[in-house]
Every structure is written in C-alpha cells, then in structure tokens.
C-alpha cells in the first residue's frame, strides 16, 4: 500500500505531468500524420528521454505510443491511409463509414474502444502480469509457428476480394520479407548486391508506399475528388455508449484476445488488430456487411490493438523481452534510466512500477478528451482540397521514411511500394494482405526453420507440446474451413441447377 501511495506521489511530480501532456499531444500528432507510425514516435523520443527523469522518460514512451496507436486510425479513416500497421487491418472498413458521411462515428468508435482496450490491458498488466508472463514464456518456436500461421490466415478473412488473390498478396508479402540477411542462413538473400537491402525491407516504408503514395497516385489519375461531406455529431461519444451496449461481447473478446496476443513477444498490436478483425467477421451474424462501413469489426479490433499495447509490456517489464518494436525501444530507455526490467523491478522498485501503472491509466483516460479535440480538428481535412492535402502527405512520406533510420534508401522503398501498391489495388489484389505478409514473414520463417532445426527435420514436435497441438488444430481447421464451405456451396449450386 505504501508503494502505491509512493507511486502516486511520483506521478504527481510536475515534470512527469508535463511529460504526460506534451507526449500525449506529440503522440496524437505523429500517429495522425500519414507515413509516421507509433514505432517512429517512440524511436524519435529516445534522444529526448535522455534529458528526462526516469519516470518522465517512461511516461513519454507509454503515452506517446498509446496515443499514436489510436490516432493511426485517423488518416486511415479519413484518407484511407493507415497511420500504423495495426490500423491497416480495418482501414477499408473505417473509410467506408467515412464515405457514408459517418467519419465522426468511425473515429469516435476508434477512440472510445481504444481507450477502453488500453484500460483493460493495463488492469490485466496490474493484476495478472506474472501469470501472463509465464504464459508468454511457455511459447517455443513450435507454438510461434502455428500462431504466425494463424495470423497469416487472417489475410483471406479480412479481404473482400477473391481469397486466391488475398493469398497471392500475402505470399508476395512473405517473399518481400525474404529479402535481406536476417534469415536462418545469415546469408544475403534476394539483395542483388545492394548493400541497403542487407537489412531487408522495413515494414514502415512499405506500408507508407502501398497506402499513402498509391493514394496520391490514384488522386493524380482519378477524376477530381468528389467532396465527402461529414455530419458533425453533437457529441462524438454519444453513439459510443450504444455501440458498447450492442457489441459488449465483441469488445470483451477483443480486449482478451488483444492482451493475449500482445503478451506474446514478437506478435504485438499489429497482429492483434488483424486477428481480432478476422475473429469478429468469422463469428459475426452478418459477416457480409464487413467492409461496407459496419462498426462491429472496428469495435473489436480497435479494442484489441490498444489492449495488445499494454500486454506487450508484460514480457518487457518482467523478462526484458520486447513484445513489439515499441517495447523494444522502451526496454532500452528503461535500462538507460536504471529501471532494469526483471522481477526486481516489482520488488525493489515497486513504487516505480505502480507509478508506471498509473501513467498507463492516465494516458488512456487523457486519450478521450484529447482525442475528441483531435477528431474535431482532423475531420476538417475532408473539406480541404486534394491539391492542399496531398503535397503534405507526400512530403511526410519522404521525411517519415527517412527519419526511421536517417537513410535515404527508405524513400526509394516508399516510391517502389507506391507503384506496387497501385498496380495491386487496380487489379483486385488486397494490399493490406501484403502488409500482413511482410509483418509476419520473418516470424513464420524463423519459427518454421528453427523448429525444423531443433526437431532434426521431424514433424512430430509441431504437435507434441500441448499448446502447440491446440494451435495446430485451430490453424488446420481455419485452413480447411473455406474449402469445405466452398464445396458445400458448389454442391448446393449443382443440386439447385439440377432441380431447376
């Protein structure tokens, strides 16, 4: 109890509160700019945290990343340019709502369920962190293989295009993930002698290219944009209580699955959003409405990605194992500030731990008022002419990609993926599935190959371990289900034709 009070006192310090507010605004802005992601928001904070007190430093990371994950939904919703890979899963859905004139409803849902998801994840972190941590540590590469396989399967579920084209897109993504020397052989693969490709194609420039640049390209080729009007709601949150009541099951499921996926190192918020959107569609009573501007999937995946963000801190704080790229950076900052991750953080530095929990809570609560202001401001973009919005987007794409590693080659990647994204989109290949492939590629391959090395080429260990067996059954069912479904449909059609 003393530790909790001590923690509250730590948070009440002026520098911490200023850090909270400033990094909240910063995170909201960075996340909302197309081409800049939550990961980048955190990476760019590192040099600044150097001059802050330990708690203020952690505050900036926690707050900025939570805000950026939410506000990554904003450009996705308004311009069909997702701000973060996590938003890519449901960008089409949100944009469809915008086209119906319901941008504020979509963004309100995003905000409300993000905040609730973040709070749920934090509570899980506070109460059952050790249990969750043990859960995370029970995952060996065999489990990861099935998990990443399931994650990839989501590509076919999420897309509205032909499943064959969705699979092809995901495979192209996996092929892109093959580039570089971060492979099981440690040898350059598909780098064609280009030094810059040795490190592989980073997902951020690829995401920026296929969504943002190809959107600018479409604007160039297309007819003058028709104005998308938007209804300004009296209160952004008014509709949300109704949605919460209607979809509380989906929300809870999103929270739980999001936290669990987030806890698993390497999976993170990106995968959580995809998995939950897919689950939502699979178990929905009206799956055919998904993708046409229907809030059900938004509720679940929006709830999931912020819950996952909190979940990712579990292995980071207890074992120093990063759950995602954001916590990987955060761990560095923790060490730099003498708050070494590990169980001692919970015993010797308990007050700091409680202070971090309080910051999580405050950040997610603060998200609501600041988010509302942000939504009010950004929806004005819908009224601005393309010729004023697109130049800024293109510049942000260039600078944002460059800023990740201060490497101009990333801008070349952005340009290339702009073309790839444009061509794929024009031919009915879902680009989001390709992004998922790039995200999951290294995990699928690494877990498959290392598992095979460990089992000396045997298949049985993939099914031996209990969690692995469960995941295997789920994956195989998910794989065979569409085939089964398709056969039934075929048979029915045939009988219908026969009787007609």
């Amino acid at each position, binding site marked *: 109890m003393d530790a909790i009070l001590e923690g509250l006192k730590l948070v009440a310090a002026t520098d911490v509160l200023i850090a909270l507010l400033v990094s909240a605004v910063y995170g909201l802005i960075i996340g909302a700019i197309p081409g800049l992601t939550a990961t980048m928001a955190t990476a760019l904070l590192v040099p600044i945290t150097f001059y802050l007190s330990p708690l203020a430093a952690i505050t900036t990371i926690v707050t900025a990343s939570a805000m950026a994950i939410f506000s990554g939904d904003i450009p996705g919703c308004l311009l069909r340019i997702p701000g973060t890979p996590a938003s890519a899963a449901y960008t089409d859905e949100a944009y469809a709502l915008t086209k119906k004139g319901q941008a504020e409803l979509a963004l309100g849902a995003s905000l409300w369920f993000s905040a609730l998801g973040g709070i749920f994840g934090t509570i899980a972190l506070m109460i059952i962190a050790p249990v969750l941590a043990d859960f995370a540590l029970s995952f*060996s590469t065999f489990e990861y293989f099935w998990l990443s396989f399931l994650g990839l399967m989501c590509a076919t579920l999420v897309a509205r295009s032909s499943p064959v084209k969705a699979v092809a897109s995901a495979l192209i993504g996996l092929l892109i993930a093959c580039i570089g020397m971060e492979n099981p052989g440690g040898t350059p693969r598909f780098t064609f002698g280009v030094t*810059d490709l040795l490190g592989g194609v980073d997902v951020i420039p690829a995401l920026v290219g296929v969504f943002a640049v190809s959107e600018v390209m479409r604007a160039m080729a297309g007819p003058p944009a028709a104005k998308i009007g938007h209804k300004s709601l009296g209160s952004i949150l008014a509709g949300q209580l109704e949605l919460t009541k209607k979809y509380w099951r989906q929300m809870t499921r999103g929270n739980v699955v999001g936290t669990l996926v987030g806890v698993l190192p390497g999976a993170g918020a990106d995968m959580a959003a995809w998995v939950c959107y897919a689950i939502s569609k699979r178990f929905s009573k009206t799956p055919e409405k998904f993708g046409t501007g229907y809030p059900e999937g938004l509720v679940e995946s929006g709830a999931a990605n912020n819950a996952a963000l909190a979940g990712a801190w579990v292995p980071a704080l207890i074992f*120093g194992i990063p759950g995602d790229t954001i916590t990987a950076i955060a761990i560095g900052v923790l060490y*730099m500030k003498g708050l070494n*991750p590990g169980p001692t953080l919970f015993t010797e530095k308990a007050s700091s731990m409680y202070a971090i929990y309080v910051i999580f809570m405050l950040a997610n609560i603060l998200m609501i008022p600041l988010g509302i202001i942000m939504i009010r401001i950004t929806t004005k973009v819908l009224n601005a002419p393309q010729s004023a919005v697109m130049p800024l987007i293109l510049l942000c794409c260039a600078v944002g990609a460059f800023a990740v590693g201060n490497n101009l080659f990333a801008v070349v990647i952005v340009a290339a993926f702009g073309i790839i994204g444009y061509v794929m989109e024009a031919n009915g290949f879902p680009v989001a599935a390709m992004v998922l492939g790039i995200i999951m590629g290294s995990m699928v391959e690494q877990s498959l190959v290392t598992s095979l090395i460990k089992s000396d080429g045997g298949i049985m260990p993939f099914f031996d371990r209990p969690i692995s067996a469960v995941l295997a059954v789920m994956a195989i069912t998910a794989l065979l289900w569409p085939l089964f479904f398709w056969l039934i449909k075929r048979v029915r059609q045939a009988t219908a034709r026969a009787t007609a």
Partner: protein
Amino acid sequence: MTRLTRRTFSFGAVAAAGGLALRSASAQGNYPSRPITMICPWGAGGGTDATARIVAALLEKEMGQPVNVVNRTGGSGVVGHAAISMAQPDGYTLGIITVEISMMHWQGLTPLTPRSYTPLALMNEDPPGIQVKADSPYKTVKDLADAIKAAPVGKFKCSGTGQGGIWHLALVGWMTAMGLKPDQVAWVPSNGAAPAMQDLAAGGLDLTTCSIPEARAIIEAGKARSLAIMAPKRNPQFPDVPTLKEAMGIDYSTGAWRGFAGPPKLPQPVAEKLTASLKKVYDSKEYKDFMSGRGYGTIWADAAGFASFMDKGDKQMGEAMKAAGLAKA
C-alpha cells in the same frame, strides 16, 4: 535568365567552397568549433545506441560543443559503418563501431575492415556467457561440456543470435578450444538474444551463448542460470559466474565490443584530442555507473591499443568463421 541562374549558382558554389576551406583551416586550430555528429549504425533504444548516447552526452561536456547522435541504420549495420568511414576527415563526424566490422568482410558483405577507420578508443566489451534453463540437469559448465562431448554431433541445440553472429562464433570458438567439431552443438539462428532466452526458458533449447547482461532479466526471474563466461576474468556485476579457464581450464575468450572511430586520415592533433577527451569520459563516474547499471563491461584502449585489439580480433573472427564454414574463401 538561364545565364543569370547559372552565374548565381556558380557564385554560390564558390562561396560554399570558400566557406568549406575556411572551415577546414580553422578546424586544425581551435577544434572543435562547431557541433559534432556521432553516427550510430544501430537503431534507437538498443545497447549500442545507449552507449553512443551516454558517451556523446559526456563528450559534449568535455569538448564544449554539442555532440549529436544520429542513428544511420540499414543493411545490418553496413550502411552506418560505411557512413563513418566515408565521412569528411575533419573530426566533425565520428561514430561508434561494433564487433560486426571485424566479421562482415569475411562473409564478403562489405569491403570495410577495422583498418577502414582512424581508431580513437575502445570503451566496452561484453564476453559471451553460457546459459542453461533453470531446471537443467547441468550444474556446472564442466557437466555440460562432458554431456556435449558424449552426445552425437548436433544433439545439443544452442542459440543467441543469427547464423554467423558473434555469439554463434563464440560457440564455435569454444567447441574448437575443447578439441570438438565446430558443429558439435547445432546452432539455431534467432532474431537476437531476447528471443533466444525466451526459447531457452520455454524449453526449446539446451543452452545459449549470449552475454550475461542480455540474459540478466530472465536469470533474475529464476528461469535460467549462467554457468560460465568466456572472458579472462569474472564480471564484477555477476561475481558468482566463473570464467571458462577457472571452471574447466580452457583459455578461450572473446566478446562483443564497441569503440569509437573516425574516418581514415583524421588529422593527428584532432584524433589525439578526441582520444584524450574520450579517456576522460571513460574515467568519469557517470560512464562507469551507467555501464555497470546495465551490466555492461568496460575496457579501455587508446588509439594504438584499439587498433591492435581490432587486428587481433579480426584474425580470431576470420579463423572461427572459416571453421564454421561462414567465411567466403
């Protein structure tokens, strides 16, 4: 119009060139007279980034000019290392270089070698440890080594980094030092020390050879144990972990190091001034506290010492990589 622009441009070019000449002239005298850029070839938040930033902050106090750390990532470290080597040799662009510089050229990934730089100071080295799962039957490194010797080739699985990474070579070096085949223990490539430690705790591996600081959190959580370190002496942060020599009489040591360097042909006075300032940084309490807080090892070598250290390490790495079949002939 064209002529005018061209003339304006050439005037600008002349002015710029003149300014440059002025700058380099003054560079010799009262160096440093403007901010210094320190290139870090690895991403923000990592161990190299942290080391670069603490040194930059302390160097700033010593030199009286801002020292800005710039992360130049890409190409698995090649891009940033190349940027340091190709910078203007005026002392205003330095960088932190890491052990990979003595490894990558053997694989034919880059023409850069430790000799592509003006070495300034070696400031950190972390030796590999040997970790097993907490409930592993092997209580000492000797138990483990005996079991490895008795087992068929490839029975034991070890990880810690990617194929051909520093901890892989440490394993190869250890095996050869024991008179075993380089692949007596199978190497399972991973995306770094953290996933490898996780897999160890999940029961997927027999041992890891990453450094103890990287394994620390999991060891402290009671999920893994460290049996030995491949270093000449024990780490004061982990005094209970014996060295290989103490535990089994094998005199083998290696490590991942970080040092500071500039481009080749750095003017002598500038290099000397930098090394002197880095020495003061190294001796400062802040640096020592920071490094021991993370469990990082500190080691000092001046320009000449760093050069011969790298030469020796480069040769050792070449041998290990050839033994492991990783080097391009």
